[in-house]
């Protein structure tokens, strides 16, 4: 998992819950580097899970909600480091291009990036469904990122996550305006 996902999470925790709570979460998570993440480094995904679980415990906010909020917060930060994301585009077309354009570009920059697969199953002018396939099983982060994108592109959407089948979640995005 890219270091940026850790550093941005820490910043969000500091902003919303303060420095002391972040210290507590880091302590409770027994991290190998004591939380010294560099945005451009790569770190075990399992450490992120531990951090999110401990954060949930300390804040009494369920993990899915945390991931969703975090995803929404993360999107504008991603746009800053991945400038090719920022363009005038229909939100559904944008999601449609994740697999064949965005992930291709990301892999050029970070050959070791571990990315989920987006299999688009249906698309209309107002709605798009895709299978989120990932070993990491955090579709809520994807949902948060989509909500963040929707906010950035000023095209509000509803996002629903279907039940899991093997490592697949069917995610449906519908325009609300």
């Amino acid at each position, binding site marked *: 998992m890219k270091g940026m996902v850790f*550093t941005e999470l820490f910043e969000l925790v500091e902003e919303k819950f303060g*420095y*002391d709570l972040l*210290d507590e979460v*880091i302590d409770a998570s027994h991290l190998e*580097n*004591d*939380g*010294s*993440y*560099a*945005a*451009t*480094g790569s770190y075990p995904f399992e450490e992120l899970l531990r951090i999110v679980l401990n954060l949930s415990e300390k804040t009494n906010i369920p993990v899915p909600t945390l991931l969703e909020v975090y995803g929404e917060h993360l999107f504008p930060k991603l746009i800053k480091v991945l400038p090719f994301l920022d363009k005038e585009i229909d939100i559904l077309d944008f999601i449609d291009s994740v697999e064949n354009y965005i992930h291709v570009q990301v892999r050029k920059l970070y050959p070791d990036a571990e990315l989920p697969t987006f299999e688009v199953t249906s698309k209309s002018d107002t709605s798009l469904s895709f299978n989120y396939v990932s070993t990491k099983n955090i579709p809520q982060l994807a949902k948060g990122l989509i909500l963040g994108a929707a906010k950035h592109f000023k095209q509000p959407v509803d996002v629903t996550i279907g039940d899991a089948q093997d490592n697949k979640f069917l995610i449906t995005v519908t325009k609300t305006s």
Partner: protein
Amino acid sequence: MSDAKWIRRLERERNARKEAENLLESKSLELWDLNQSLEATIEQRTADLQVALSSAQKANTAKDEFLSNMSHEIRTPLNAIIGFVDIMLKKEMPQEKRNRYLGIIQQSGKNLLRIINDILDFSKIQSGKFSIFRTKSDLRDILTNNCKLLQSQARKKDITFTVDFNETFPQTIISDDARIIQILNNFVSNAIKFTDNNGTVNVYFSYDAVQKNLELRVKDNGIGIDAKAQEKIFTPFEQENASTTKEYGGTGLGLSISLSLIALMDGELIFESTKGEGSVFGFTIPIASIPDTIEQT
């Protein structure tokens, strides 16, 4: 708030910064390496392209010259044929004169055929469609008879022409005799062409029973080839220099074809020449097997 907490946070930030710096350094180094190898690749490509360009330009120039020589080479015998036929159609003439004209027409036709055959052979070799057919034949007799035809060419220039075989030269052999004759004719025609009147041309065939090699040497005491031009003469469409072409004619394909034929028969070229003293052209080719019924003569 205790100092310890702040120290710990500072420590965490410092470590993260150091790690980021290390990553930056290693990325820079990677980029530098990449840049170096790209530069080297570009230099190599540029050099390759220049070589390719210059060889393409050379080939193009040679082909242009070839075309202008060729139109001359083809036009000369054609003009002779048309001209003499015109005269013969218009005028009554004694049989003797008629025969002389017919002889010229026949020779012009043969020259034309040789030129066209050269061009066809050359383009076949170029496109890799040329094959070698080895058959059992009385090579010794075939060579001897062919040399009789060459003898008459030599006689026209009062050139002393000798043909010898070594003692172990077999009667029957498995080889592509047509191609061997083609090379022999090319070497001997060149020798006669580039040797002054009253010179000598010697043809020597030998067979090495131990190495199983067939060897041909055509030696003349003609004009020889300048050391600088010795590589050039085997290049298609090239002769020693432009004045050679003007003075002696020819397509500049003969030696190139012979060299290719020798290579197709897995043989090696023999070539020695000294300007003003003469040249030796020849080959050694491996002979796979000799039929049991060898008749020594």
